[in-house]
C-alpha cells in the first residue's frame, strides 16, 4: 500500500504541476500520507522530495493560517504559498504580530480581502524580515486608501496578480504601476469605479498585463 502511494508520489512529482488541481492533489497526497505514517514520511518521502530540488510553481496552494503554511512548507520543502486571511476578526488580525512571524518565509501571496487594513499596517507587513518577494497581493475591500506602501516596497516588484476590488475612492496611483509592477499579469479594479479610458491610459506601459478587470 505504501509502495503504491510512493509510486503515486513519484508520478505526480514528475508530471506537470502547472494546474492548481494537480498541485492540490499532490498536497492532499502528502497531507494524508504524513497523517497516516509520519515516520515513514520523514525517513523516505521527505528526503526524496527534497533531493529532487524542484522549482515549485508559486504560489503552490492556498492556506488559511500560519500553522497551515508551516505544515505545508514542511511537507513540500522550498515551496511558497498563498496565505488567505480574510476570515479573521478585526481583533485577531494584528499586522505587527504577523510581521514578526518567521513562518512568513513560506508565503509569496497575501489575501487580505475584507480586512480593514491601514497603510501603516500594510507597510509593517511588507517590511517584515521574514517575508520574501510577493507574487500575488489581494487588497480587495480593505479600504486601504492609498497604495503608497505597496509602491514603496521592493518586495512587490515581481507581483503578477494585484487585486484591488472594492477600493472605490482610494489613491491607487495607477500611473506608477507600469514602472513598479513590470511583471503584472492580472489587475483587478472591479468596483473601484475608475473611468475605463483613464485607467487604460495610465496602465498603458504594463506590457505583461493579460487581464484587466474593471467591472
Amino acid at each position: 500500500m505504501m509502495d503504491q502511494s510512493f509510486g503515486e508520489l513519484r508520478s505526480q512529482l514528475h508530471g506537470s504541476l502547472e494546474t492548481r488541481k494537480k498541485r492540490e492533489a499532490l498536497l492532499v497526497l502528502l497531507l494524508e500520507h504524513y497523517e497516516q505514517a509520519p515516520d515513514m514520511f520523514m525517513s523516505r518521502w521527505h528526503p526524496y522530495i527534497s533531493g529532487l530540488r524542484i522549482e515549485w510553481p508559486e504560489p503552490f496552494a492556498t492556506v488559511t493560517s500560519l500553522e497551515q503554511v508551516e505544515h505545508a512548507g514542511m511537507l513540500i520543502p522550498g515551496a511558497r504559498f498563498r496565505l488567505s486571511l480574510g476570515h479573521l476578526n478585526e481583533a485577531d488580525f494584528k499586522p505587527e504580530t504577523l510581521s514578526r512571524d518567521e513562518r512568513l518565509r513560506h508565503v509569496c501571496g497575501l489575501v487580505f480581502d475584507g480586512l480593514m487594513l491601514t497603510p501603516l499596517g500594510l507597510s509593517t507587513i511588507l517590511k517584515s524580515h521574514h517575508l520574501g518577494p510577493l507574487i500575488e497581493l489581494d487588497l480587495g475591500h480593505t479600504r486601504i486608501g492609498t497604495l503608497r506602501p505597496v509602491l514603496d516596497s521592493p518586495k512587490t516588484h515581481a507581483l503578477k496578480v494585484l487585486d484591488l476590488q472594492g477600493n472605490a475612492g482610494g489613491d491607487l496611483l495607477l500611473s506608477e504601476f507600469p514602472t513598479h509592477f513590470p511583471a503584472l499579469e492580472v489587475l483587478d479594479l472591479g468596483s473601484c469605479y475608475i473611468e475605463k479610458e483613464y485607467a487604460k491610459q495610465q496602465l498603458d506601459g504594463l506590457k505583461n498585463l493579460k487581464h484587466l478587470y474593471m467591472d
Partner: protein
Amino acid sequence: MLHEDITYGAIFYGITIGIDDLGEELETLNTQVGQSKGLSLWVPGDTVYGDPYGDAIIGVMVRLVDSADGPTSFTLADIERAQKSFENARPALEKLAKENDHVAAVMDNTPQTYLTCCGPLSYASLAYGELWDSARKDEVEYTFHSCQDMDQEWHPQGVDGVTLGAVEYDDLHSVDLDEARLERLGDKVAKKQNPQLWICVRYD
C-alpha cells in the same frame, strides 16, 4: 420586465439602451422586443410607482430571482448559455434595429453581463461563498448577504462570502467573470469548501 410590482434581482446579458427620452416609445420598444424571438427587455428600477429612466438592457436572462426566493446560485455555464442565445438572436435584433431607430443607435454597444434589480424598493447583491443561516449572521467568516422578502422578512438563509457587486433601484453593475477570476474569488473565501456565485435580493 417593465411595470413589475414584484421585487426581483437578476443576472442579465445584453446591450444597454438609454431610455430617458423614450417616453411612450418605451411601451412600443417593450412590445417589439417581446415579439423578437429569443430576446427580452429588462428595465431596472421601480417602473410601477416611479418613472423609468437611465439604461435598460435588450438581451437574454441568465437568472431571475424573486425577493421571496432566498439565495439563488448560478454558474459560468449559465452565462455562456445566455451569450450563445444572444448570438443566436442576432437576426431578430437586427430586424428590430430596422424597425426601431433607438435600437439601431445602440447596435454597436458591446454586450455584457449585468447584475440588476427591479420592482419596488429593490436591492440585489452578487456574492461568492456558501449558504449561511441568517440566525447566525454574527458568526460569519466573511461578509453576510441577507435576503428579504416583500413582507420585509429575512429568508432563513443568506450567503457568507465576498461581494462582487451590489445594485439598488435602477443601477446596472457589469460583471466580468471567468474561471481564473473564480479561482481568485475562491482564494478570498478559502475557508469555504464549495463556494458558488449567489444572487441575494432584498425588498429594502
